[in-house]
């Protein structure tokens, strides 16, 4: 049975288009072989013409060259044929790909339709409602089991404590950025030039740090 199945499957694997493409490809191969043959002939004719010229047989050399010219024309004609065949092969192969894409799209669309059909809007609404109810029930159970729940005032207290903590943190951050401005206000610009030249940095930093502390206390 399996053998029979695989056999029938095998037969279907090579399509009519495949055979057509193969036929064209084989024709292309034949043209290529023909070109090879002509190219070889050209080679010999060129050689013979050269020999004839060397031997001083002008008429015969001209005759051979005329033949050679004819063969060259033939070669360029076959080039055109080759191009036509190859274009056609590409077109057929591309059409095969397109057909496959089309089939896949059709299948995908069908599948999407089937899935969508299996979903009824009313049913979905019902399910969503039920889910909501269940969630509410769950919340209630949760509240009952844990015994006490936070009242609104409790929540407010928690919120407040949280905000305080946030405020504290922000205050700390602001302090650091604000300090330079405060210093400028406290020590106006005209006073700045009296900074001494020998080792003044250490002192200044100390002063600044003092100020920082002062301001920090004020802020809090």
């Amino acid at each position, binding site marked *: 049975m399996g053998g029979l199945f695989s056999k029938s499957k095998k037969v279907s*694997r*090579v399509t009519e288009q*495949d*055979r057509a493409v*193969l036929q064209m*490809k*084989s024709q292309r*191969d034949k043209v290529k*072989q023909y070109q090879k043959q002509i190219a070889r002939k050209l080679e010999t004719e060129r050689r013979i013409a050269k020999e004839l010229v060397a031997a001083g047989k002008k008429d015969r050399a001209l005759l051979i060259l005329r033949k050679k010219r004819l063969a060259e024309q033939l070669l360029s004609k076959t080039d055109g044929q080759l191009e036509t065949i190859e274009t056609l092969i590409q077109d057929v192969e591309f059409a095969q790909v397109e057909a496959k894409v089309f089939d896949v799209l059709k299948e995908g669309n069908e599948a999407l339709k089937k899935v969508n059909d299996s979903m009824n809007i009313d049913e979905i609404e019902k399910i969503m409602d039920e889910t909501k109810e269940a969630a509410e029930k769950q919340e209630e159970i949760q509240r009952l089991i844990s015994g006490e729940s936070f009242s609104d005032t409790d929540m407010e207290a928690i919120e407040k404590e949280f905000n305080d903590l946030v405020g504290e943190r922000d205050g700390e951050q602001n302090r650091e950025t604000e300090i330079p401005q405060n210093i400028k206000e406290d020590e106006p610009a005209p006073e700045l030039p009296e900074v001494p030249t020998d080792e003044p940095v250490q002192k200044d930093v100390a002063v600044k740090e003092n100020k920082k502390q002062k301001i920090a206390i004020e802020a809090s």
Partner: protein
Amino acid sequence: MAEINWPWQYNFPPFFTIQPNKETQKLQLDAWKSLVLDYCRSTKQCVIDVREANNSPVFHNAAISRKLPPEGILLVLEELAASGNAEPLDKTKTRWFIFWRTLQELASIIHTWAKDNGFTNTVCTFYELTNTPDQEFSGIDEDVLQKALKELEKQGKAEVILSPEINGVKFF
């Protein structure tokens, strides 16, 4: 034609006489096997005719005027057949296919090439395959190619299309 790396045995006269000692003979035949395969690979020769084999330099070293007798050639070919590297064309065993790659190896090489070059699901002519440049299978005998493709067909990776005019294959 590529340059052939002759093994040292090739210039060793006793190499051309089948050795009576079984162990020596085994070594000798192994050397012959690889020599024949190397030679056929570099000359792209796919068929050996026992009657004409002595005209081929592989079985006839003119430099030391030694020839492997036909019985010896047959022995080497039988050995090659045992490892899947040769196959007689018919029952007379005068003409032999030489597979320097076993058919299975060749089949997977071809299939890998087809996959790498996007030839799956398309048809190729035998001429197209044997004229692919720089591949292990370029220039091989179309009969050998057909045998290798039949291997692929057994694995379901290809289907050989044979008709009086056109031989082709479709890869999957």
